[in-house]
């Protein structure tokens, strides 16, 4: 290949296996003698389990066992937990109800597992699962979080009275109220952030095996963070001690947050593999994925923005009810709190903010982080408010935003965050220019001549990525540190293996991480291998989510590289009898500055391992590890401009133009960054126009397959116009900010702002389905006619 360093559009090293069908995903793995698991799931949203009769199932061909929650509890397997403690404003800790991997007493959402069948084949397991007879006594269910808070609502967990998990606040309430008293104008909105289903194309899967001689378990699973999975499985669920459990997340087909968590099914496979005495495989079908993968978003908010007479923002007041679903998933409590309300300042200088968040249990699938996790909810709220306020006061959306931009850094917001660097004017200007914002009026008139309603909308988002530092998140309730680890192993022949705690499930780490080494030593990226996703190979790592692999994961690699470089230079200086300070690394060689003396990287590596002639007291070998704990979050930001055309007869919205200008700090591989933005924007457009997890009143998920849940397809979206502006992040050695989630933050408000602009009506809820848009267009036309 080539020496491809920082900034190169290096083609992906991992692609060859994927384009030739040689990728190895969990469902592609086998173990000798393995059987298959099929789960028996509740058809009710809320019911008492009064009996389980497995006799008929056990008599069916190929069936090994039918296991239930009583056996699970009897074997001492622990409850599933939420790993982030939130305290209510009165100081009390959040009220967490018990969650068992197989429920023996009360099921609380449709699809919850009550038993598992292990059989020789998948078909036999599913046949037998159908034959397990479960008796239920149905209870009243509640699916709407506002209903769940009402007096007399069905109660889910005895621990959480009134279904209220916590009643949390952030910001200065008195100062905010005071700001509203001084306001010349107040913009008020009710905003609903629709519930989504993450839908990575690879459904979750697990293959678990138990070696009774070694008392050792192996689990292949679809995880974004195999080490965290091992930690939780051993420390909290007591399935196996950590040193007797190897977790491997091989090729993983997308995650978007949904594969962070440790779910009942993976745990049950591990437990069952020992109990049944054979390896157990489970592969989710798509409907199981809809029913059991953690959902995302689902916020109901009331927001108020106070402006002075000069249209400067004085204060921002937000009340949000967050639907957590039937159980508290692993990071569920952090999403509507510290990942959400801390971003309510947006890109704007807002003197006073107060937010109150109530988290509520309902008889729905658990809700947790999905691409962006809290930050898209904040961005949508802020940017819908900004656009609406600008319309109300008669300023152009761009001018109103400019009037309120933060321009001095570091900037301390009233909601914890301290923004370290940014240039919001630069991305706004770039986006407006690329979108030909000034030419919009002519395009609108032309569209009108074709009977189409054309609109344009802006969104200026800010994100907080690379959640850290560990001590700070610990003080906010996190149960884990949020650092990352890396180890750089130089082999005796000079090839390099980098072991990382980050996990790639589409992000291209095998390429971008190799580019760091290529840059540092001038080596071909082909001489570098990135090792990840296996707890037996990598010592520990926190995994990949929250756009952290660049800013945190790569920073750890840089720290390890610093140590390797230092040692290599010492060896080279010793061998060439030069001063260490005179050694320069260039093109795969270590040179003595100002001379023609040089050694290849391979010669130095070999010298480190032969150890025949090392500096006095130096240990042999060339392998260094590092843990990196960031000093702050990173703050990617940018402006998105969306232009739509609406067919008023059908309500169909076509996105005719979408422009993004992002500031991700330093970029390692622009090709991969563009790909991340394309994907993020498309998921955001999906939220804005297409996607919605809908329940009926009884708690049945109406959108439990692709027949009813609208996934964005190629003909739903246009090609996007992207650009980047770089302000380097001062907080990490590479100056990176992260790019994985930005697209999903910035796009939903841009789309809805564009549609409401086209319609001249603001009362639009996501997703802006054709029927909703049609209805609004009809009422608009009626009003115009009157």
């Amino acid at each position: 290949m080539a020496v491809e360093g920082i900034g190169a559009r290096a083609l992906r090293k991992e692609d060859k296996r994927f384009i030739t069908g040689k990728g190895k995903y969990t469902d592609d793995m086998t173990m000798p003698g393995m059987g298959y698991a099929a789960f028996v799931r509740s058809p009710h949203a809320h019911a008492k389990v009064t009996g389980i009769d497995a006799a008929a199932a056990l008599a069916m061909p190929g069936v090994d066992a039918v296991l239930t929650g009583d056996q699970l509890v009897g074997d001492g397997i622990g409850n599933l937990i939420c790993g982030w403690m939130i305290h209510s404003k009165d100081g009390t800790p959040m009220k967490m109800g018990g969650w068992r991997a197989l429920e023996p007493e009360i099921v609380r959402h449709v699809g919850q597992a009550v038993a598992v069948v292990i059989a020789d084949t998948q078909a036999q397991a599913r046949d037998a699962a159908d034959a397990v007879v479960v008796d239920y006594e149905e209870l009243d269910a509640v699916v709407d979080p506002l209903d769940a808070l009402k007096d007399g609502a069905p109660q889910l967990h005895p621990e959480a009275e009134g279904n209220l998990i916590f009643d949390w606040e952030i910001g200065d309430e008195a100062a905010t109220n005071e700001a509203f008293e001084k306001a010349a104008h107040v913009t008020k909105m009710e905003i609903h952030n629709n519930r989504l289903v993450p839908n990575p194309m690879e459904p979750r899967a697990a293959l678990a095996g138990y070696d009774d001689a070694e008392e050792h378990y192996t689990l292949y699973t679809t995880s974004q963070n195999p080490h965290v999975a091992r930690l939780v499985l051993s420390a909290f669920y007591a399935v196996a001690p950590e040193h007797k459990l190897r977790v491997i997340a091989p090729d993983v087909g997308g995650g978007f947050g949904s594969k962070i968590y440790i779910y009942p099914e993976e745990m049950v496979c591990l437990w069952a593999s020992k109990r049944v005495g054979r390896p157990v495989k489970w592969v989710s079908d798509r409907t199981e994925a809809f029913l059991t993968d953690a959902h995302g978003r689902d916020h109901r908010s009331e927001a108020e923005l106070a402006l002075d007479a000069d249209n400067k923002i004085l204060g921002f007041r937000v009340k949000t009810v967050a639907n957590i679903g039937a159980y508290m998933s692993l990071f569920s409590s952090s999403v509507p709190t510290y990942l959400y309300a801390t971003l309510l300042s947006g890109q704007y200088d807002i003197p006073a903010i107060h937010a109150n968040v109530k988290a509520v249990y309902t008889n729905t699938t658990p809700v947790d982080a999905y691409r962006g996790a809290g930050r898209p909810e904040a961005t949508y709220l802020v940017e819908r408010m900004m656009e609406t306020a600008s319309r109300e006061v008669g300023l152009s959306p761009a001018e109103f935003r400019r009037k309120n931009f933060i321009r001095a850094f570091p900037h301390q917001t009233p909601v914890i965050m301290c923004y370290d660097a940014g240039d919001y004017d630069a991305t706004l200007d770039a986006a407006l220019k690329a979108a030909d914002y000034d030419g919009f009026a002519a395009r609108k008139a032309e569209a009108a001549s074709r009977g189409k309603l054309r609109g344009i909308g802006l969104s200026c988002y800010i994100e907080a990525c690379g959640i850290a530092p560990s001590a700070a998140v610990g003080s906010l309730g996190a149960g884990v540190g949020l650092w990352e680890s890396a180890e750089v192993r130089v082999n005796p022949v000079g090839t390099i293996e980098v072991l990382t705690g980050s996990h790639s499930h589409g992000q291209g780490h095998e390429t971008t991480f190799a580019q760091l080494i290529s840059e540092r030593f001038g080596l071909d990226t082909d001489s570098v291998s990135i090792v990840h996703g296996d707890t037996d190979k990598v010592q520990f790592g926190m995994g990949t989510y929250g756009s952290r692999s660049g800013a945190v994961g790569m920073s750890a690699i840089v720290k390890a590289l610093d140590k390797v470089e230092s040692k290599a230079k010492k060896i080279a200086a010793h061998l060439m009898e030069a001063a260490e300070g005179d050694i320069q690394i260039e093109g795969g060689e270590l040179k003595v500055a100002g001379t023609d003396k040089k050694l290849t990287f391979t010669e130095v590596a070999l010298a480190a391992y032969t150890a025949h002639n090392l500096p006095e007291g130096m240990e042999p070998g060339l392998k260094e590890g590092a843990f990196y704990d960031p000093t702050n979050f990173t703050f990617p930001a940018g402006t998105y401009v969306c232009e739509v055309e609406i067919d008023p007869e059908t309500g169909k919205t076509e996105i005719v133009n979408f422009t993004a200008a992002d500031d991700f700090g330093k970029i390692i591989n622009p090709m991969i960054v563009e790909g991340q933005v394309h994907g993020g924007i498309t998921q955001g457009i999906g939220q804005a126009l297409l996607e919605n997890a809908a329940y009926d009143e009884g708690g049945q998920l109406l959108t439990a397959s692709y027949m009813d849940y609208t996934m964005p397809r190629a003909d739903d979206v246009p090609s996007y116009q992207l650009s980047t502006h770089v302000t380097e992040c001062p907080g990490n050695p590479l100056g990176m900010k992260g790019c994985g989630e930005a697209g999903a933050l910035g796009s939903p408000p841009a789309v809805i702002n564009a549609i409401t602009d086209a319609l001249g009506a603001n009362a639009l809820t996501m997703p802006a389905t054709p029927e909703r848009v049609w209805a609004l267009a009809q009422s608009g036309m009626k009003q115009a006619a009157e």
Partner: protein
Amino acid sequence: MTKVSMVLNGKSVSADVEDRTLLVGLIRDVRGLTGTHVGCDTSQCGACVVHVNGKAVKSCTMLAAQADGSEVVTLEGVGSANNLHPVQAAFREHHGLQCGFCTPGMIMSAIDMINRHGAGNLDEKTIRHELEGNICRCTGYQNIVKAIKSASDQMAGMAQAAE
């Protein structure tokens, strides 16, 4: 059980399978060709697309028995790491994949699309419409569309050069 015989990636194979076995089950579980994936239960995602008698079909929506006597080609059969099909090469060149899970179906659908329209005859709008039966959650489709267009144009050039 039923005996099913077919030519799979150029090789004659036969297997005794349950009548309810899907073609994708035979390909993956019996023949161990795991390049073909299953991403949904309702024939929408297209991760399982293979060619049967030269035409793209969803192997999760066809019984193995229906393919008895057919010629079946999976992603493994269109090119290898050292001898990539132009569509495979274009997906890499244009970053038309991220997690790789939908990629097998995307590439098989792309080859079928180029076969039907003729190399060089695809524009962005047609490609996007033709991809109705293939869902990708990672790429936002932009680079997939680019890759298919590029491969189609390149294959037209190759065909011209061969004349």
